[in-house]
């Protein structure tokens, strides 16, 4: 599914960010491909809000619609050494 389709409040893993620049910028913000994010929320009439640790970022809807994610309900993120590696 895409990030835009993720349920409000769900814990998800980012699988693929297609756009080069967006991917680089997301990695800088802390959400690379493979990262599990704590909370995602498609805002009612706005972008998608993603929160991981204390970091909150907003992604426009059309970008969110191109980002592939999967649900990762049980996983703790906790900035563990391994979680950035899976992709």
């Amino acid at each position, binding site marked *: 599914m895409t990030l835009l389709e993720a349920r409000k409040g769900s814990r998800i893993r980012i699988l693929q960010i297609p756009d080069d620049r967006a991917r680089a910028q997301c990695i800088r913000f802390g959400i690379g491909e493979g990262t599990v994010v704590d909370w995602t929320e498609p805002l*009612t009439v*706005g*972008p998608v*809000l993603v929160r991981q640790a204390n970091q909150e970022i907003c992604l*426009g*809807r*059309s*970008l969110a619609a191109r980002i592939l994610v999967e649900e990762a309900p049980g996983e703790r993120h906790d900035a563990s050494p391994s979680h950035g590696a899976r992709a």
Partner: protein
Amino acid sequence: MSARNATAPSCHGPAAVAVPAGAKKIVLVGNPNVGKSLFFNAFTGLYVDVSNYPGTTVAVSSGRMGDDVVLDTPGIYGVSSFNDEETVARDIVIEADLVVNVVDAVHLERDLFLTYQLVDMGLPMVVALNMFDEAEARGLRVDHQELSRLLGVPVVPTVAVSKTGFDEVRRALPDARSGASDPVLQDLIVGLLDRVDSRPEALLVLEGDPFVAARHGVEPLGMRDEIYLARRRRVNDLVARVVERREGGLDLRTRLGHALLRPLIGVPVLAVVLFVMYEIIGVLVAQVIVGFTEGTIMQGHVEPLIREVVGAVVGSSGPLYELIAGEFGVLTLSLTYIVGLLLPLVVAFYLLMSVLEDSGYLPRIAALADRVMTAVGLNGRAVIPMILGFGCITMATITTRILGNERERKIATALMAFAIPCSAQLGVITGLLAATGGFTLTIAYVVIMVVIFGLLGVAMARYVPGESTDLLIDLPPLRVPQPKNVATKTYRKTIMFLREVSLYFVAGSLLLGVLQVTGALTAAQQWLAPLTVGWLRLPKEAATAFIMGFVRRDFGAAGLYGLGLSGADVLVALVTITLFVPCIASVLVITKERGRSFAAFTWVGSIVLAFLIGGILAHVAGWLA
């Protein structure tokens, strides 16, 4: 990416500041909103130079600390060439002798990415672990000694707001050293050093920076994804080892931050904020303060004095007198305009924008407006120039530089030039509406302008070539702005603005003076008359108002006061004058920013559009009556 990045004159790009022999270049680097400028102010004191980095429009501050030079860089999340800020920061960082990296202790996952990039560049550095108090308040315990050991550079906990830790940072500077980088990455960098002459640049070439690669005549190596992902893992690993998180619910501030993003609360709050801004700028500053600075000081005292002096020197009539001190005189009109009208408005706008910026509210407005802005081919970030446009279109046109690409800048520039009334004009428009039409007419005017704005935006989103960028921003926590920081920011931005555009206002008034002296203005008035009377069904004197609109949009609107218009005529006249050409200074700035053909398009387009829509309105009103 703009062409100017590629045309840097020297090998390392233009030097921003002259550094005396023997002095060290100490460069402050950090993410946006981490308190970097507070460090800069404390290190350098009063004597600070702010200038545009050569070839760009990004302001860089520099000052002295003892024998050394301190440079502030724009806030960035990483060093590369994604936008002008990064390009400027990149070129300054490459040349740094010593880096002070300011990081936000609350957002180490984000900030340490840049830190590790600087470490990978091999630059001698000191890390200031700022907002240490806030991190503790949020249940984060950061082990700064362990962080220092793992990074391999001095780490000093600081609280910039209360100047805590500044002396310690200063004392740590002699201990600055290159940190513990990734050995594999360092091997790759060393392998490049025969072709690229410094480690920072070698790293950027590896990360695929096309501009740095071009400077050294090598191909950029497309390893960004691998390097970035590996760095991200190192950051996460580091954070896991030095940060201890106390579990707890979301604090009040985070909840409030979320609430502001949700329409049910966010929209009413935004409405209140905009209303307060309007009351401060549109009423207090535009009417009361400008009434005093423009009317009493400039027109009441300064202009008569100038006329007297100029009259005594060149005689009080004739073309030369007109050009210097006449109605559109270089010394009268442009001076009054810049000092009496623009200065108070621009100060007020930058003051409020700095408050919004420092409080962390601005990105939330951008998020809230994203959906609407997407419909007109922009993204949420475009609300910043749009809001500024209600102050001064010229100022806002310059601010379109923050937008993602040229397509977005074109759409935003044209939308403002066509459909957003600037504060000077707004003052007269609201006055006229209040005097003649009242509530119904005001609502009708607003609805018509919003519809026109929307239709124009949708049309441009469709026909302006290219693709708009998506919103991708981080949301800083809400904070109480620091008055001193707000004041410094406002001061610097105002100076930069005046420095950049004053010449255009002078050129504009000179151009108008020439048109008046040669009789071209009167001729245009005659020529416009049939259009005014026949098509818009307004009295023929209204043509003067439109002609004056070429000069200053508010002059145009003010010209409508004396015509005794009522009802639908007021609406026709106001809509026409709003859509009509942007003022001459903004046309000149549009030319400078977007090029001649685009400026010509907005200028001619606004005339056609103004009369087309004005005429249609007049005829519709005629049928209804």
